[in-house]
Every structure is written in C-alpha cells, then in structure tokens.
C-alpha cells in the first residue's frame, strides 16, 4: 500500500514538474507572439501595454491591507485604461499571505508573466525579501505601504509612496511637543510588528530630544492582542495625558473601547495606520471623538480627487477606502505620469524600464491623494507633508 501511495505521489510530482516546464514554454511563446504582432503592426499609436504587478496578503491575518491595495490598484488601472481609450496597463495581483517566502514566490510568478514594474508588496517583511530579489533583477519596485527604512535601503530600484517609519515617529513627537499637547506620554505599540516598533523607536528618541516624558511604553504582540485592557490600565496608572498609538486601527479601536470602559480619557494620537477607524463596521465612532492622527490621507477630505476616489471605490467594492488603498492608487498614477511623460513604454525590458523610472521618480513632482507636490530622493524616500487631523463629530477635521 505504502508503495502505491508513494508511487502516486512521485507520479504527481513528476507531473507538476512537467507542468512547471510547460507553463514556461507556453508563456515564452505567447510573449514572442505578442512581440511579433506589435512589430508587424508597426502602428505607433497603439502601444504595447505595460505589465504592472501587485503583491500583498489577500488571505490570512493581514488580508485587510492586501485587499485594500489590490482593489485600489485594480480601480486605478481600470480608470486609466478607460480614460486613455487603450490598454495602458495590464495588471496582475498575487497573494503573499504576509510571508516573505510566499512573497518571493508571488514575485517570481509575476516575473514569469513578464512583469515590468511592481506596485507592492504591501507589508514590510515580505517587501524586504522581494526588494532584494528585484534589486538583483533591476526591476522597479514602488511599495504603497511598506514603510520601514530598511525597505528603501535594499536597492536604488526601491521607492516608497508612504512615509518612512522614522519620519512618522519624529513628525509625531515634534507635533506633540511643538503644539504643547502634553508632556506625559504613554505609548501602546505592537512589538511583534515591524511597522509599529519602527515608529515607536524613533518616536522615543525624538521625544527625549524634545523633552517629552514617556511615562509608560506598553507593548502587545500579535498573539496577545485580544485583551489590551492591562496596557491601557498601565498608561492610566502612570498618569499619561496623551497616549501615542503607532498601530493599526483595529487594535486602536479596542484600546478606545477599553479606555472608555474604565473612564480613562487622555488625548489619543495615531499615525497613518489609524486611518480607517471611522469606517469599521459596527464601531461606535463617538469613542473616537478627539482622536488625533498624522495622516497623508483621509477619506473625508473635501477635495475633488479624494471624493471621486472614495465614491468610485465604494461603488466598486462596497466599503470606504483606507490609507493603504489611497497609497496604492497613487502608486499606479505616479507610474502613469511617467508613461504620459513618455519616459516609459511597454516595449522596454523590465530593466530598461527600471532605469527610466528611477530617473523619472527622482526628477518628477507628483500630486496624488496622499499629498501634493510629492518628490522622491535618490534613496527612494518620498517627501510629503503629513496633515494633522482630529476627529470631531465623527469626521476628520484639520487640526488648528
């Protein structure tokens, strides 16, 4: 019996091997066919579509971020192709389950498809792994939301559209100190998460410089985050007047609920991960009253661009887009700007396109949902100004 099973397993393994080989030949023939078609056609007006790839967790615990990025990219690609009247972008999105190994697999799958520029990955750890691979291949990476400093240090082909974590930590501490919001600060952060602990580290360093006193720095991990009342209690006991929350909005909503239960009402201050808290289904938004956050994007903003995006997103996917979606949407449009400027076209190889985009990104100015006049430096870091907003009567209002 065992023999039968192992024979069957071996047979299917050979089959899967063959399948892998087969897809390789198949995809190379199609791309050959495509290239001959374009050369024969010789019509310059209809360009070869640019193959844009996206990566993010669409399943598992971090799926909410990956799906936001995926939806927004799909929306942007659709809009661009419709308004241009031709297929500017061909687009494909692969799941990475928030895991470095799976993310590299996803990247390789996209490579087999012939991807020319990558909008992703979504989360920090997978992005580090993929960026290293892409640096070897000289393939352009523009991540919507992997905000660690180490991400852009991987190679000169890696760009961010979001703030780097150190930036956010420093900006938050500066804002709190400069506006005299409080002197006794409590922090609750996710020590098992690269984003959260990255911001916390820099916040702490800057707070020391600015003379803010951190009276309680409480962590939680992905495994013990169901109960956050003790962390809240410790901030309360330490007399923190302001609690800094460099975390995502799900956990933040739990902290607000826990604080409300014990009647603790400090100023809560968050970063870009906080955006989305008002659109959690079933959340009592009155608890978020007075919550401040530094964010490049708010779904309630009144400018035309944001309103158009939020409406289109809601119509297509049924919920309010968060900051991840806005960043991803901007990524696609930033690359589209380079296309419009004639810097890139679909006939380039991935490496040529990477070099072209590196040049374009370091010299262009981009206006998007998450900021106007964005520029990038050689390292791939974006410079844009975070807006401080405060929640009043269930909507974002610019602070001051």
């Amino acid at each position, binding site marked *: *019996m*065992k023999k*039968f*099973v*192992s024979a069957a*397993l*071996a047979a*299917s*393994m050979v089959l*899967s*091997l063959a*399948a*892998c*080989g087969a*897809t*390789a*030949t198949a*995809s190379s023939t199609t791309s050959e066919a495509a290239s001959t078609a374009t050369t024969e056609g010789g019509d310059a007006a209809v360009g070869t579509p640019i193959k844009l790839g996206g990566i993010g967790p669409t*399943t*598992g615990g971090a799926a909410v971020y990956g799906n936001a990025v995926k939806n927004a990219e799909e929306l942007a690609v659709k809009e661009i192709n419709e308004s241009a009247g031709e297929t500017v972008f061909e687009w494909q999105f*692969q*799941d990475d*389950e928030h*895991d*470095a*190994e*799976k993310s*590299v*697999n*996803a*990247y*390789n*799958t996209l*490579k*087999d498809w012939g991807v020319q520029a990558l909008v992703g990955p979504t989360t*920090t*750890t997978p992005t*580090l*792994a993929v*960026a*290293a*691979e892409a640096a070897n291949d000289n393939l352009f990476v523009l991540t919507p939301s992997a905000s*660690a400093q*180490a991400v852009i*240090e*991987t190679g000169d082909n890696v760009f961010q559209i979001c703030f780097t974590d150190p930036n956010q930590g420093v900006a938050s501490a500066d804002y709190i100190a400069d506006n005299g919001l409080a002197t006794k600060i409590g922090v609750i952060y*996710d*020590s*098992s*998460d*690269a984003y*959260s*602990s*990255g911001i916390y*580290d820099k916040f*702490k*360093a800057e707070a020391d410089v600015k003379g803010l006193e951190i009276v309680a720095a409480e962590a939680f*991990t*992905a*495994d013990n985050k169901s109960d956050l009342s003790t962390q809240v209690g410790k901030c309360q006991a330490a007399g923190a007047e302001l609690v800094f929350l460099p975390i995502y909005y799900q956990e933040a909503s739990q902290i607000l609920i826990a604080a409300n239960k014990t009647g603790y009402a400090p100023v809560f201050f968050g970063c870009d991960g906080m955006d989305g808290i008002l659109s959690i289904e079933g959340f009592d938004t009155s608890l978020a009253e007075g919550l401040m956050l530094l964010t490049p994007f708010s779904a309630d903003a009144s400018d035309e661009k944001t309103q158009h995006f939020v409406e289109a997103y809601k119509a297509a996917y049924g919920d309010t887009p968060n900051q991840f979606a806005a960043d991803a949407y901007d990524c696609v449009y930033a690359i589209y700007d380079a296309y419009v400027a004639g810097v890139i076209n679909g006939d380039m190889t991935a490496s040529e396109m990477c070099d072209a985009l590196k040049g374009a990104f370091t010299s262009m100015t981009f206006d998007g949902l998450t900021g106007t006049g964005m520029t990038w430096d050689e390292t791939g870091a974006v410079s844009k100004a975070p807006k401080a907003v405060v929640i009043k009567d269930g909507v974002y209002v610019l602070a001051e």
Partner: protein
Amino acid sequence: MSLKTMKKSTRSNLITFGIVIAFYLIVSLMSVMGMMTSSFAGQLVPICAYVVLAVSLNLTVGILGELSLGHAGFMSVGAFAGTLVYTLTFENTPLPVSILLSFLVGGAVAGIFGLLIGIPVLRLQGDYLAIVTLAFGEIIKNFMNALYLGYDSTGVHFSLKDSASMGLAPDGVVLINGAMGITGIKKASTFTMGIILILLTLVVILNLVNSRAGRAITAIRDNEIAAQSVGINITNYKLMAFIVSAVFAGMAGVLYALNFSSLVAKKFDYNTSILILVFVVLGGMGNIRGSVIAAALLTVLPELLRSMKDYRMLIYAIVLIVMMIFNQSPQIVSWRKKITAGFKAKRAAKKEKKEAA
C-alpha cells in the same frame, strides 16, 4: 549484489536516494535547457529546507512516536544562530568556510535546544507532550521577537524591551532588531546546497533508523515498558532521537534563512510547525521517502493553485482534507486494497493464461 538480492531496507533506501538525485538531475537539466520558470526556480531552496524538516520531524513523530508541535522552534534558533555567524563572518572569511560554519553553528545550537526540550519529553506523554513542544515553539518565537542585539566598540549589547534600551553607541551595529529580525542578509543558499543537505540528512537518519539504535527507538515507540524490560535505555534513545531531529531542523533553518534577505521570528510559529507535521502525516508516519515526496509536493501545491485567485487557499484546504481522508480513512484504505488486489489477481490470471498458451 543485484537489486533483488539486497536487503529490503537497503533497497528501499537506495530508491529514496535515487529519487532525490533524479530530482536534482532533472532540475539541473531543465535549468540548463532554459525550461525553468522563475516561480519554480525560486521554490527550490524552500522545498529542500522543508524536505529536511519533514524527514527530521519524522524521526521524532514517526520513528520515536512522540507528537511534536514545535519543530519550527528548532528551525528558528538554528536560523538565527547560523545567520548571525554568516553575517559576522562572510566579509572576512572565504564564502564556503563562512557558510559551512553557519550550518555547523545553526545545527549545534538547535541540538542544544533539542536536548533542553528532550528533558520534559522523558516525563510526558501524548497530547501533554504535544502541548509542551507547542509551548516551546511559541516561547522561542516570542523571545526572538522581543530580542534586540547589537555591538559597538564597548562590546555586545542586548535588550528584551526595545532598541533604545540596548544602549548602543552611535557607531554601533544592530544585529537583531526585534520584530524586524535580521535584515540585509546576502543571499547564499543554492539548490545544490539544499540537495547536499537533504542527502546528508537522509544518510544520517536512514542509517540511524536501520541501526541498533534505530531498532531500540522503534521498540520504545511500539511498547515503552516492554522495551525497558529488555534493557533498552529509554532516556538515552529518546534524547538521541530528539537531538538528531533538532540538529537537522536547525540546519534546514539556516538553509531557509540564507535564501532570503531578511529573517523574522514570526515565520517560525505553530503554523509552520503544523505545516511540517502535515508533510510527515501525509507522507506516512515513519515513511522517510513519503516525507520527502509529500514535503516537495505540498510546498509546490499552493503555487500551482495561483490561477485560482481568491479561491486558492480554499481549494488548498479542501485538497488537504480530501488527501487525508483518501490516505488514512480505514474504509477507503481497505477499498483501495481491494481494487489493487483485483488488479493483481487479473494480472496473475493473464500471466497464467499466457503460460498455458
């Protein structure tokens, strides 16, 4: 000696080696001929690591018969120890030496943890042991997630709180940065290294299984009291199985870690431990060759399902359940036996007819 006259176990082992070497040759041939997809090429090293993990776990679960849910913990300590050695040495020492050293250190550190976790094993049984190994894996993950390690001119600093409390001088170098883990690793693992590690694992574990020690270990699995009564030193053999298993898991961890540019503790959680256990159970407990094949197959499967888009992991779950029932359900097993017996009978009948004619 011809294949037929060999001892059954030797022949079976040779087939296992043959499968691994054939796999290596086919893949090499494919890559020379340019038939390989990036997707498949990228999975080769993880496949090798999972095969080593599955084979080494089979030693504890299949041969020794103790359920372990913390195999990823050994992988984790091995990976971190080995990667540290690698990042500290690869600039000043020749690359092969640095890599070899990191594998040795990774294996050795994991082995020490194997000994540590082996001690409670001697007192506990069944599901209680399973939960202790799970706890062990989670402790390692939790600890590595909170560990900050760095060095500067004044020496080595570490903290279990945050990077600021390490008290590192401005010129200091952070080696392990908490949840960020180790970043900027220069990729070193290759498929050939992976295959060598698989072959080494197979040589050691198959020899162990077919040796006097291996027979003692299986005797413990089948009946601990009976084994004790014939004078088998249970403590020694149990520890031996645990340590050998841990050493190879640690080496697989090094292989895995050096294949990516960053290493985080989160990867080695109970889900990874369970994944390895799935390979072992699906391949057949105690069946080393089954582990090899099941690990390779189940690592590739989710990638082959990518065309299913959103339904990918749903289908993976269903395939897993169906395969388990197909392989292990007593009714289906006996039904399959009947069918194969029917085939054999038919074939035999044909043969007889031919001979008669």
